[in-house]
């Protein structure tokens, strides 16, 4: 598929208190980012299990991004600190298995950073679009016939 036609599927997990609010703010300010991004609301970034990320890739996602409060600003005080360790290790493992490290990302976006949210999503979609379809973590059964 030529790059220009390829529309990646992006799953964005956003914590309820900062990043989801940041995404809302991007909306309120009419800041455009590609429609390829679909947001799933979670209470805290620490709610995101590595299983969910792999599941997204299995089901056809081309990129998964996790957004939470800035370290130190977690609504639950420490949640994102655990997220940070878990995801660093998970991403490193995926890289170790030869899976493109650009397909996964963690970004800290506060409720006030609507512009950052939009910018992050634009950049992530661009990166994943350049990478093309997720082949290395795909489940062939889930591909649409």
């Amino acid at each position, binding site marked *: 598929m030529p790059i220009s036609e390829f529309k990646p599927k992006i799953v964005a997990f956003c914590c309820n208190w900062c990043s989801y609010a940041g995404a809302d703010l991007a909306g309120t300010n009419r800041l455009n980012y590609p429609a390829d991004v679909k947001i799933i609301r979670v209470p805290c970034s620490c709610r995101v299990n590595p299983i969910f990320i792999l599941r997204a890739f299995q089901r056809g996602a081309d990129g998964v991004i996790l957004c939470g409060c800035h370290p130190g600003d977690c609504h639950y005080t420490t949640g994102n*600190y655990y997220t940070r360790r878990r995801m660093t290790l998970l991403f490193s493992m995926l890289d170790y298995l030869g899976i493109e490290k650009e397909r996964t990302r963690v970004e800290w976006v506060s409720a006030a950073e609507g512009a950052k949210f939009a910018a992050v999503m634009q950049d992530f979609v661009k990166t994943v679009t350049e990478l093309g379809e997720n082949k290395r973590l795909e489940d062939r059964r889930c591909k649409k016939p």
Partner: protein
Amino acid sequence: MQEAMKKRAKELLASGEVTRVIGWKKNEFDYDITPAVFESAEEIDRDFRYDDFCGPNLSKFTFKNQKNDTKTLVFLKPCDTYSMTQLITEHRVNRDALYLIGIPCFGKIDIEKIRADGTDGILSIASEGADVTVKTLYGDKTYVKADVMAERCLACKSKYHTIYDELMGEEGEVMETGRFNEVEKLEAMTPDERFGFWRGELSRCIRCNACRNACPACTCESCVFDNPDTGISQKAAADSFEENMFHIIRAFHVAGRCTDCGECSRVCPQHIPLHLLNRKFIRDIDKLYGEYQAGEEVGQRSPLVNFTTDDAEPDIVRKGGK
């Protein structure tokens, strides 16, 4: 050592200090070793064995065969003590019902290495000092022990016992044997090479669960991959994705808890170097969050349930700063 162990086990049984002994027994061939519970001096005299083939980690066996109402003697090699300590930290075994004896280990022989050399029809095998003598239907062979020792023993992390009530033989030390060399070699490859390497390895997986069931860190009452309620249970890898999924998540679930005992790779019927997944996590943890050895002491806090406010950002992976 074997005779001293038998003597001590019988003493403890006779004194009533313990009523059960967990050790190893010989099975069909010289290299066939089965973990076992011994309840009498006769059983010990007849079957008890400790030699260079006693690879199985008795900590997992102890976990599966624990009894709370009586005291059990368990013989533990240095690497088994790490697993035992970790199990105690996680409240998975009742320390009060155990009498632990630390025993020395001089490295275990990997029969698969001998087989991979084309040696077959083995009638007997003996390990004496640095020599391993194999008698076969097709002629005899002698190996240098270091050449046929298990990989995990060549890269032994420690001859030190992290827990025991009693120690037999001399206490050893934590060692530096380059156990991360293989991980580093993989890290140095290009992503495509790494992908090729792991596809080649993991595609051999038959999902027999031997790695998981032998793993002393995998003691879940019900594994997420067996429990249909999790939505990710699987019985066979119906797609290469599921091979990745199973092994990534299994490694992740034991990350920070894996003591690097190497049982996963020992039991894999398909010779998949599964320990290289666990070691990658250990390596990353050491580098990013400070040296950490699971099972070093009771009550340790695993790095995955810990943090500092200035931990590295996940970006470090993408930016290749590590």
